[in-house]
């Protein structure tokens, strides 16, 4: 049994001018200790997916449907109390903006210690001692002094290290990292990625990495899920996906990617520009969601939404055209 199973996840938001179908029928799983990346442009629903797993979507205006099974337990049916016991303890999360994700009026030590006091019942003193250890672990010098400081006294990279310390304080089984390096300088990005890989080995947590940066994906992920317009369009192990992308969208994303092994952090590894805009999610799209931007679009695509199909072992994609190519190739 997988650690996390997401089934038919739908997360919709009520807005004044219609219902925004931000995530519309996504399936995936994460095994224990595995690193899975979810990639896509901004607005593709990858962050909403991440937030839905921990049920951090405000309801209303949002609503989550489907099933999210963690260790076999459907989180969508869990009570608020059960969810609180899971958040920060068994599943924890790192956010994109280290500058704004830490509470400005509470000390760093208190914010790390809070999780420990909540989930492990530590006393204030024990929690602070553990916070110092955690700061040491994530490589913050002078941890004893730093625990008593406020976030504004730390640099962006340091704050993201603090976020990681908070997330890992309780040894979670699953870590969701939502664009953990996007807001950071390139050199700091590499350090944070190293730190995450290192800690993953030590703690043994599975990671769901949300990113639009394919360089980051190539560096840390084992399996990749490509999302577009609220749907999963392709999924494969990192090697096959980069070598042989099946979906035209993934091909577009990888268009300007240099070969694996070359510089991974340079500007050129960012997403290539794909002409056109992500369609509005406030209207139902009859055919393939990518049809409006796809270079290989046919009448078939605008009429019938392609189902996800296994194009090669362990490699699924949602494209009529990819299927044809496969048949011809075979």
């Amino acid at each position, binding site marked *: 049994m997988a650690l996390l199973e997401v089934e*038919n996840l*739908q997360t*919709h938001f*009520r*807005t*004044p*001018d*219609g*219902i925004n*179908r931000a995530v*519309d*029928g996504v399936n995936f799983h994460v095994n224990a200790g595995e690193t899975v990346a979810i990639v896509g442009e901004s607005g593709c629903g990858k962050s909403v997916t991440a937030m839905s797993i921990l049920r951090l979507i405000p309801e209303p205006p949002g*609503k989550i*449907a489907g099933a999210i099974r963690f260790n076999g337990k459907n989180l969508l049916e869990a009570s608020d109390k059960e969810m609180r016991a899971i958040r920060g303890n068994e599943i924890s999360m790192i956010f994109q903006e280290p500058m704004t994700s830490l509470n400005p009026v509470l000390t760093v030590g208190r914010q790390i210690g809070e999780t420990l006091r909540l989930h492990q019942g530590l006393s204030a003193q024990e929690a602070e001692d553990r916070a110092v250890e955690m700061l040491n672990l994530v490589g913050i010098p002078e941890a004893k002094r730093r625990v008593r400081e406020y976030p504004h006294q730390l640099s962006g990279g340091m704050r993201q290290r603090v976020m990681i310390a908070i997330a890992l304080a309780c040894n979670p089984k699953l870590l969701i990292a939502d664009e953990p390096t996007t807001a950071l300088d390139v050199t700091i990005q590499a350090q944070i990625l190293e730190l995450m890989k290192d800690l993953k080995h030590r703690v043994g947590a599975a990671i769901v990495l949300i990113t639009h940066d394919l360089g980051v994906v190539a560096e840390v992920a084992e399996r990749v899920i490509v999302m577009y317009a609220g749907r999963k369009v392709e999924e494969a192990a990192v090697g096959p996906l980069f070598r042989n992308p099946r979906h035209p969208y993934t091909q577009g994303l990888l268009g300007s990617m240099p070969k694996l092994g070359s510089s991974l952090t340079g500007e050129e590894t960012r997403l290539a520009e794909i002409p056109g805009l992500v369609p509005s999610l406030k209207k139902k799209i009859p055919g393939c969601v990518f049809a409006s931007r796809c270079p290989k679009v046919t009448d*078939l695509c605008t009429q*019938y*939404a*392609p*189902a*996800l*199909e296994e194009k090669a072992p362990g490699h699924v994609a*949602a494209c*009529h055209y990819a*299927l044809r190519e496969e048949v011809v190739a075979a």
Partner: protein
Amino acid sequence: MDGGRPATIPPGINVAPEMGDIMPPVKAKKGFIGFLRRNPTIAIGGTLVLLMVCVAIFAPFLAHRDPTSLAPALRTREPSAQFWFGTDMLGRDVYSRVLHGARVSLTVGFSVAFFASLIGLTIGLISGFIRLADSIIMRFMDGMMSIPPILLAIALMALTRGSVGNVVLAITIAEIPRVSRLVRGVVLSLREQPYVDAAVASGTRTPMIILRHILPNTLAPLTVQATYICASAMITEAILSFIGAGTPPIIPSWGNIMAEGRALWQVKPYIVFFPAVFLSITVLAVNLLGDGLRDALDPRMAKRL
């Protein structure tokens, strides 16, 4: 795979199952009715204000008797078919007096809102455009704002003969600093805008900049502020009259009617009750209108307040 699909699907095509709706659809409300639906406070507040304005205008026709005519024989009658709101200690018909009271309240409210906005706008514009004047004016406004408005109005009223005009003057002076600050704030933030910068750089003259860029953007917050000033001026007028520092007792204002009913309030509460209800409803209506306008005109401000 998808057995339930119509047979028109070409063979070999694998169609994704359609995802259902998980929440009811949104009905967009458009047009004037939609606007009122989305801004119920404007609809309710506006209707009530209009109603009160009508009451004030047609008070002489709606009133049963002359609001100032004394009838000692009919003193302190309970509300009845003849005297809807009863009579006061001098036998005057409270219903007729309350209707006429609407005239005083609305006159004071609207006049103060108008004059305070006009003067505050002028001071705010000067302050926002002339650096030298700014520090002096704003220091002075800070000082004025440190005097609680009601006390300031009381002090001014103590020095003048009671009249509706002087009440308007006293409350207006107390309200000016707030408007000036608001307008100055808007001007200063607009001056930072690139398009205003560009206008200045391209040599557009200041009056033109004010007319084209500043005034239109000041209008929305100023209108909202003016409604709030109108509401608070009506309350201040009532308070001033109530403690004997407002409209002369001869004029039937709501504050005066209540002041006269004060001595008897434990035995004849209706004398205080009816003007109180009219005053509260009118102020409530104006406040609702203000809240609605704020939400409709300036969503940013709506978030802050």
